């Protein structure tokens, strides 16, 4: 019986010790309730040092690394250029990169580390919506600004709290654009939709189906495949037999997108193929010239030829000698570096002040972007979308579609 007693004592000591250590602290509940109660000491303001640190979170492992790594390279380039040009108000800009591996737990662990150890006030990232939603609660409680370059789920800004912002259009917009383009340009009555079963793709899918039906169209085939599917011959056959006017494809991973389009082309489907951003990446279009020929993609309008964006594309090519895999997302990740350079120079590295400034951000230009305005939710009011059509390996813009 002796060692049993010992175990009991250890257990009780732990419980009492932890209880005392914890319960003499006020219960740091979420902002709304705890205003009256003296909040727990918020992370002390950054002590004056020769460096300014901001955080970056994105997937560096697993299949989502296909997005995380290109975005990381874009932010790295921005940080390098800023430091070469004298840094942020004379101080060296340091970006702490953390792997959120595209899931809630990973994002939360990365953010907790950045906030409590690197004491960041700004986090550029999460790449995936799930990853970002994993750490918006922590960021809000610690009054740290979250700025995602690519998360598209509507929940991010509606449920992400006051400290969540993004330049990337919420799915709500891109889905509407594709639907109205299909109706106006192709007079489509019957549409087929095939989507990846991921947060990004399902967001676009839901909004497209809604707006297409509201506009009087009919979605005859509505398929969502699990990631990792490789064979699409049966779906292509189903779509061919449905004889639709237009096919809306939303993929998460380019590999699956290319295989899907190939299966559709093999079945000699003549209906126009509409898609979102992933498949009209420059590298992907170049490598799969004939498979993706004629695919029309929609991307929030940003003038690639504008001198800021062109400079970035050239600088990226010079540093990494590869083209931009996702021009739009990478340009945002790059431009966010400059946005926060300005913010810190104006308001200091302080989450609360910067959040207030961002809430009222209007017509900001910098990096590769021009006149960006944030609405009350922290979303960008994208008025126009560029329509790009893949023609023998190139992705020229064939027009701009203005939202009514």
């Amino acid at each position: 019986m002796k060692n049993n007693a010992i175990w009991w004592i250890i257990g009780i000591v732990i419980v009492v010790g932890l209880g005392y250590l914890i319960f003499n602290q006020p219960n740091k509940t979420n902002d709304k309730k705890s205003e009256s109660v003296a909040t727990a000491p918020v992370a002390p303001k950054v002590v004056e040092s020769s460096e300014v640190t901001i955080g970056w979170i994105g997937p560096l492992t697993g299949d989502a690394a296909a997005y995380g790594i290109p975005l990381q390279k874009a932010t790295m380039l921005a940080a390098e250029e800023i430091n070469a040009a004298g840094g942020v108000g004379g101080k060296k800009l340091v970006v702490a990169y953390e792997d959120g591996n595209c899931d809630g737990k990973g994002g939360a662990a990365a953010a907790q580390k950045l906030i409590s150890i690197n004491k960041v006030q700004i986090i550029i990232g999460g790449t995936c919506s799930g990853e970002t939603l994993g750490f918006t609660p922590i960021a809000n409680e610690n009054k740290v600004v979250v700025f995602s370059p690519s998360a598209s789920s509507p929940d991010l800004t509606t449920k992400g709290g006051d400290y969540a912002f993004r330049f990337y259009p919420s799915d709500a917009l891109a889905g509407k654009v594709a639907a109205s383009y299909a109706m106006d340009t192709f007079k489509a009555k019957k549409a087929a939709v095939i989507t990846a079963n991921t947060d990004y793709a399902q967001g676009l899918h839901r909004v497209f189906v809604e707006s297409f039906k509201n506009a009087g169209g009919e979605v005859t085939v509505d398929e969502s495949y699990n990631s990792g599917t490789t064979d699409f011959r049966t779906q292509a056959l189903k779509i061919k037999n449905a004889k639709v006017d237009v096919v809306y494809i939303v993929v998460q991973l380019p590999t699956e997108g290319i295989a899907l389009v190939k299966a559709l082309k093999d079945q000699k489907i003549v209906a126009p193929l509409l898609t979102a951003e992933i498949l009209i990446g420059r590298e992907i279009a170049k490598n799969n010239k004939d498979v993706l020929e004629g695919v029309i993609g929609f991307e929030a309008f940003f003038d690639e030829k504008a001198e800021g964006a062109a400079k970035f594309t050239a600088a990226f090519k010079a540093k990494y000698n590869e083209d931009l895999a996702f021009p739009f997302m990478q340009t945002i990740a790059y431009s966010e570096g400059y946005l926060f350079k300005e913010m810190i120079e104006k308001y200091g590295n302080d989450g609360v002040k910067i959040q207030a400034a961002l809430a009222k951000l209007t017509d900001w230009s910098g990096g590769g972007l021009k006149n960006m305005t944030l609405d009350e939710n922290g979303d960008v009011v994208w008025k126009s979308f560029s329509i790009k059509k893949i023609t023998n390996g190139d992705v020229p813009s064939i027009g701009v579609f203005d939202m009514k």
Partner: protein
Amino acid sequence: MDLILQLISNVLIPGLLFALIAAGFSLTYSVTRVLHLANGGVVIVAGYGFYTGYSLWHWPIWSASLLAIAIAILTGLFINAQIHERMREHGIVSAAGMLVATISVLLIIQNILLAIFGSAPKSFADLQGTVHEFGPVIFTDHEIRILVLIPILLIIFILLLKKTKTGKALRAVADHEQVAEVVGIASRKMRMLAFGISSFLAGIAGILFAIEYNLDPSMGIMITVRMIFRAILGGVGSIGGAILGSLSTETIVALTGYYWNVSWVDFSSFLLTFVVLLIRPNGILGKKKRIV
């Protein structure tokens, strides 16, 4: 009538590819009792070997394929020699331990490929060839290659097992290792041979798979999972079972995909395996020990 023909054609391409992979898996399982989950990794290693040869070094197809197959066989033999044989020598043969070991090897292979080749997808658009119509059914050049090559390979493989001396030795070891030892068959050599043949099949499947479905490092896990269910359905340890299991699963996948929704495809193929296993615990053709 066209629809049925088209659906059958949809079954054949993935069905044959996975039949090749599952046949190799069943061979290694019956001879060495190892659930070789890393076989999915060997498949994509072959795919990347072909990519290196063909796209990076611009070798002709044939030499790139030989390179890919050689790498696949070396990987398979290395895995068996350094991990499974070593574990047997240490007397560590718990089923759980071996299962965890093969899963770790699969993840290691994927991460190594991710580090070397990056995460961007690799594709071989120019090798897929033009589309041909055979009545309602449509096949590209590459798919015809698959339709012709794999059945021949499988037939040769089964004949090799049934007729040749080494084939009999393999089956003896599969049947009862100790008895085979008594009769003078070096069971260790046979186990290595089993891994070699299985990796050879995985190598060819890897090349055909990469050309047909493109390539990225994270495909290994999904290939492995699909391979296991097809092999178990057919009866683990029986090559004929692996082929039958693969084709019947693809039929269910095609039917679910066409008449219901593609999101439930994995679920329905798993349900099929589960139901069959409840009725026949050793799978359709599986006996405890039979190979073919």
